[in-house]
């Protein structure tokens, strides 16, 4: 058994009368590739926000590598090595692709003296091996100097994931990385993510179960704030409670996603 990296015990988050996340116990082991699925409003994003610290939980505790991080700010958690991408894109529109990467890289390997910080030019960092390699891995060389606001959705999503990977987090948390993308772009992203499997703990939220079923080793199904199934793909889908809501998840969601896109 590898070590447990994230663990939640009975985390609960209410928005007024709505219980968005309801006493969720969850754990993620090192280098595991896990998926969370669930219908609209199941509480997946809220659960992510609790783990990353953007909301404090109303009840329950969150542990990172055995350490209680329940009361820590997002920044403190990032400093411990956690990170994620946002459901809404977290790239910077008015900066070039390469500079978005430089900012992340710089954070991960920062020099802390004030003078060095003020005088370090982007150019010096633009050719760092890791940044060049990241551009290549995510197939972004050709848009290296383009402003993010001029990228296609697929390129932007790849950049977002590239930024998350470059930060070298202990856990790569991705909230719907495939949403709104064309099939061809989805293939590129899954292929790229596939290269991280075994080297990296990955937690991925996805609407369309069909896309991640070959990718994840373990699946968790959420419904109305609760975890209703947890285990292998087949195991989850044979669960009676999941069967009752599953068809909602895949069929209904495919429809609504296209409507939204």
């Amino acid at each position, binding site marked *: 058994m590898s070590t447990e990296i994230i663990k939640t015990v009975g985390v609960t988050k209410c928005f007024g009368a709505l219980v968005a996340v309801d006493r969720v116990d969850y754990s993620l082991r090192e280098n595991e590739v896990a998926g969370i699925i669930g219908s609209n409003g199941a509480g997946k994003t809220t659960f992510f926000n609790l783990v990353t610290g953007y909301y404090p939980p109303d009840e329950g505790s969150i542990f990172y590598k055995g350490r209680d991080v329940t009361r820590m700010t*997002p920044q403190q958690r990032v400093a411990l090595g956690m990170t994620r991408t946002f459901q809404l894109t977290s790239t910077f529109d008015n900066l070039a692709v390469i500079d978005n990467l430089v*900012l992340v890289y710089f954070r991960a390997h920062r020099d802390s003296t004030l003078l060095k910080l003020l005088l370090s030019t982007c150019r010096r960092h633009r050719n760092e091996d890791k940044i060049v390699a990241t551009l290549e891995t995510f197939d972004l060389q050709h848009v290296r100097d383009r402003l993010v606001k001029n990228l296609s959705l697929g390129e932007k999503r790849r950049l977002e994931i590239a930024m998350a990977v470059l930060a070298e987090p202990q856990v790569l948390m991705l909230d719907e990385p495939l949403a709104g993308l064309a099939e061809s772009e989805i293939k590129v992203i899954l292929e790229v993510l596939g290269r991280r499997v075994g080297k990296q703990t990955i937690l991925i939220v996805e609407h369309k179960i069909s896309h991640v079923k070959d990718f994840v080793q373990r699946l968790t199904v959420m419904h109305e704030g609760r975890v209703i199934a947890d285990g292998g793909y087949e195991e989850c889908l044979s669960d009676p409670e999941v069967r009752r809501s599953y068809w909602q998840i895949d069929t209904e969601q495919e429809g609504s996603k296209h409507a939204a896109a």
Partner: protein
Amino acid sequence: MSAQLLTSGVIFGLSIGSIFFLMAIGLSLCFGLMRIISLDQLLYYSVGAYLTYSLTLVTGNVWLGVLGGVVVAGIVSFAVERLIFRRIYERELTFSMITSFGVLIGGIGVIKFFWGVVPRPVPVPLMAQIDIIGTEVPVYRLIVVAIAFLVYAGIWLFLNRTITGKAIRAGIENVEHVEGLGINVSRLFTITFIIAGALSGLAGGLHAPLIMVDPSMGLEVLAFVFMVVIIGGLGSIKGTLISAFIVGQVVSLGSLIYAPLAQMAPFAIMLLILLVKPTGLYGSPLLKR
């Protein structure tokens, strides 16, 4: 209007626009990044001017005085950021405005305590005149304009070439996301505030030889600097430069035509521009809280 009057009016407008620009950058950056309205920039402007006055008396060199003014204004703004603004970033915009107004008024009191209320003269460091299309123009005013352009270039390089500058631009877009990267946002705030304060000090120091230095000199330019920021578009350096020169020309040429116009015309222009483009010339619609 004679050509000579016009030329000297334009030069006067450029130099006063340069002063407005130097002060407005700080206000604009502080709003763009920290979402505060930093009226206390006008205090650093007076601090720059008074330091220039005193150091010129001691050393006999106005340029040394200006340099000292910049440094002290930077130090004072650093202290104010650490002691006061740090605690109120999370608050409402109006809160920062009232707090900074308090700092400004309190600071003016301190200035009165040290230097008294009598207006002080600062000598012009360069008496030379230069001939531009038949008009004698003071070289010092041209130097002020040149310094404003140098500062513009420096700020541009800083924001576009250094990592800290990129982080500030990213922060103007979305501070939470910058924080999410694990970048120390509070340090970015401090750096930005010091830059703003030092540039306000520079504005005061450069302006000192052209006016009389008095404790409430900041209040006299307050309205114009605000107009520059609003016309240019909050958070945009280029817009600030352009609008500073527009306001400078309007003030200068307006007063040639009819003196009361100088006070009024910039407001009219500001209202016109806001009617056509509510975000200002270069204001980004992204700048919403």
